[in-house]
């Protein structure tokens, strides 16, 4: 199957500032991709280049088999990062207007608008001007406006921001539904839990570069495995083993020791078995009060990859 989206060596300069630096990736139809990265990483610029709102300085984009998004604009839906609506327009009319711009005829667009607003709990607000809606409702209206024409390819910039937990869940369902119907979804977010729950794939950007591209398990493997142990004995002998990369005390309320025992976090090589660490402790007569093996979260991966200590090191 040909890729729904393919970026090849896309670079964008604003004057002398390189906002996007040689970014390449491709997405398969029906996949959900999380587009992650700190503020100013170049995500929005990349999205605008995908949409052909901006022209790349070099490199190329193929979207649904076309070199310009405008050629396939009827098949694309886009929710921008900063949300805004025409304040005086009624909710249904905003949804319908954007749907007509995507090729729906006026009557169908109106029908769709009422249908969607009804389905997502905004029936009573359909005839209200959008400035009478709460922020969350407004955002839902805007999302509905961007998908009212049932697009094949959907780009959502920060779709979860400003939504309460219930509506975040609704948003997740909308995204999953679309993927089930073989729609391709790419969304950016700062909240890693959403990406973790939804995405087949995450792409992480920092300072204009793509610094990670892979599945969630792959992302988690970027970080060394960790265990947390609690003991009152000296753990110095552990430092002598090659599998252990680092040991650092875990502070709680500014103290490392509590009731005579201390907590430590050990990082070890990717292929080392946590059981071996346990065995080492027994061998060195380190009496454990607790032993905790935890998988790194996507949040940890994010912080590590874009944090200052990680710089722009490539992990793959």
């Amino acid at each position, binding site marked *: 199957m040909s890729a729904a989206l393919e970026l090849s060596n896309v670079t964008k300069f604003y004057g002398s500032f390189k906002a996007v630096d040689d970014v390449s990736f491709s997405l398969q139809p029906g996949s959900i991709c999380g587009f992650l990265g700190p503020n100013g990483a170049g995500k929005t610029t990349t999205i605008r280049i995908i949409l052909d*709102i901006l022209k790349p300085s070099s490199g190329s984009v193929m979207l649904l088999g076309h070199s310009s998004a405008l050629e396939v*604009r009827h098949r694309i839906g886009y929710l921008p990062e*900063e949300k*805004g609506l*025409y*304040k005086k327009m009624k909710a249904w009319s905003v949804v319908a207007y*954007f749907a007509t*711009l995507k090729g729906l005829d006026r009557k169908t667009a109106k029908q769709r608008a009422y249908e969607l607003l009804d389905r997502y709990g905004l029936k009573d607000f359909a005839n209200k001007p959008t400035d009478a809606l709460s922020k969350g409702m407004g955002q839902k209206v805007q999302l509905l406006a*961007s998908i009212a024409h049932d697009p094949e390819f959907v780009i959502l910039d920060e779709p979860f921001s400003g939504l309460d937990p219930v509506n975040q869940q609704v948003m997740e369902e909308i995204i999953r539904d679309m993927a089930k119907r073989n729609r391709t979804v790419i969304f950016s977010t700062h909240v890693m839990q959403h990406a973790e729950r939804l995405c087949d794939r995450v792409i992480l950007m920092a300072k204009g570069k793509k610094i990670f591209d892979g599945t969630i398990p792959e992302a988690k493997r970027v970080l060394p495995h960790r265990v947390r142990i609690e003991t009152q004995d000296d753990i110095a002998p552990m430092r002598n083993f090659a599998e252990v990369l680092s040991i650092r005390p875990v502070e709680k309320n500014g103290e490392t020791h509590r009731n005579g025992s201390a907590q430590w976090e050990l990082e070890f090589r990717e292929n080392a078995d946590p059981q071996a660490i346990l065995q080492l402790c027994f061998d060195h007569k380190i009496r454990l009060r607790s032993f905790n093996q935890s998988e790194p979260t996507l949040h940890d991966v994010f912080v590590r990859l874009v944090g200052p200590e990680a710089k722009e090191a490539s992990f793959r």
Partner: protein
Amino acid sequence: MKYAMLVAWREFAESTKAKGFWISIFLMPTMLFFSIQAPIWLEQKATPVRYYVLVDQSKNLAPAIESAMEKNYQRRVLEALGDYARKYCASQLGSPPGANPLGLDGDGEANPRSVESFISKGGKDAAVERLKPHLRPDAPAFQSPRRPYQVVGLPSDISSDSDLSTLADSLKPYLRGERQLEYNGQPITLSAAVLIPSEIENFIVRPQTNHASRITHHETPATNPPRPSTVNPRSIQYWSINASDPRLRDDIEHAINSEIRQREYAAQGLDVAAIRQVEQTYASFASLNPKKEKGKEAVSAADAVRQWAPSGFVYLLWLVIFVIVQMLLSNTIEEKSNRIIEVLLSSVTPGELMMGKLFGIAAIGLTMISAWMLAVFGILSWKAGGASVLAGQMLGVLKTSDLIPLFSIYFLLGYLMYAGFILSIGSVCNTIKEAQSYMSVLTIVMMVPLLTMTFIPKDPNGGLARLLSWIPLYTPFTMMNRAAADPPMFDLIGTLVLLLATTAIALWMSGKVFRIGILRTGQPPKVVEMIRWALRRES
């Protein structure tokens, strides 16, 4: 194009929902209506009757004054009858058959002879009788106009024999409005007092004498303390707190002086009847325009309207363009500040978006203009039937001239040119506040035609008018202003071509600025930078 039209439709539909749009639609006809109706109302109701007392200690002038004031009033009655005849006589335009029996001249003005013959033929009642056969059956009865001035007697506690300064002092409370007089059982406020000293015959100023005596106009001290200057005991005194309306004073002064002159003629042994005859002689005077068709060269009041009508159109043009480019600006900035622009640009190209906005707002402008035109025609036709001569003349000019087609052309081109600038500004600004610094420059530039509007008609093909016509920013307004004066074909075509070219360039350049500016955030760029974008080659 389909998408540009969708954008245009939304712009149009949303703007017509705004209150401001409807206010501007209704404001103009309302203003027009009141500007026609107000003088009529003022005439009928608003000016109150002004009461004055006349104390003539010389016992010599009062009858002459009263008869002159009565004659003035009869003149008003006669003119009102003329209007009445024009409005209700069976035949409409030209000289109504009923107007001639009144002896009025062509413009409905009463001359001294016609007033005298009106009075001698029996005044109002007789004239109404003479008009009756010519009137339309639905004509209402004639209403005499109210007297603007009414003489009243002195209050009972004031004696007309006391000396003038005492008299003036005792009248002051009445003149200041602190006390009221009674007239026909109604309390009234005194607006003026005319006091004539008993020795006035001795104080008449003649060219060979140096006695200074004339009516002096005293302001009754209402709030200010009295001025130290003493009242000249040799003058006739006119007391009033209303210094701004001199009509009563002028009427009385004129009556007294013409009476005094009549007596002088008699005293010097001249034939008073002959002099009166001489005074009523005049030469008739006609204004002619060499540009007009032979036999119809006479300049009528309609020609003055024709001369000035373009100014109205210039103002309309200016107003519409100014109002709708502001709309264009605020709509563009709304989309930009809300970031709706990104969604739009994922659906339409910047070119389509820009076209859509231009067309949508142009449609708003055309709607406003059409609504105004309809209202203007409506109001003028309604009022043209005699109540307002001006309305009829304006209507005639609108129907016969090419002002409306010219107006349409200049509106479209002028709007598109200014819209080009506005779109450039709107596309780079995130808030109206940011746009203000650019807008203030544009507003000042746009003020020029408003300032020149009043004096271009006086010299419509002069140096200044021609110079401004050739500056494309001012071409629409100035050429519109000159429209009635048959500007040279060279000016008409040349400036139109230049305007077309400028409009095309403005739109093309603003298209480029728009594409770059519309997605920019942060500080708006310097004008130089925008010009650089505009001139940059497409990448």
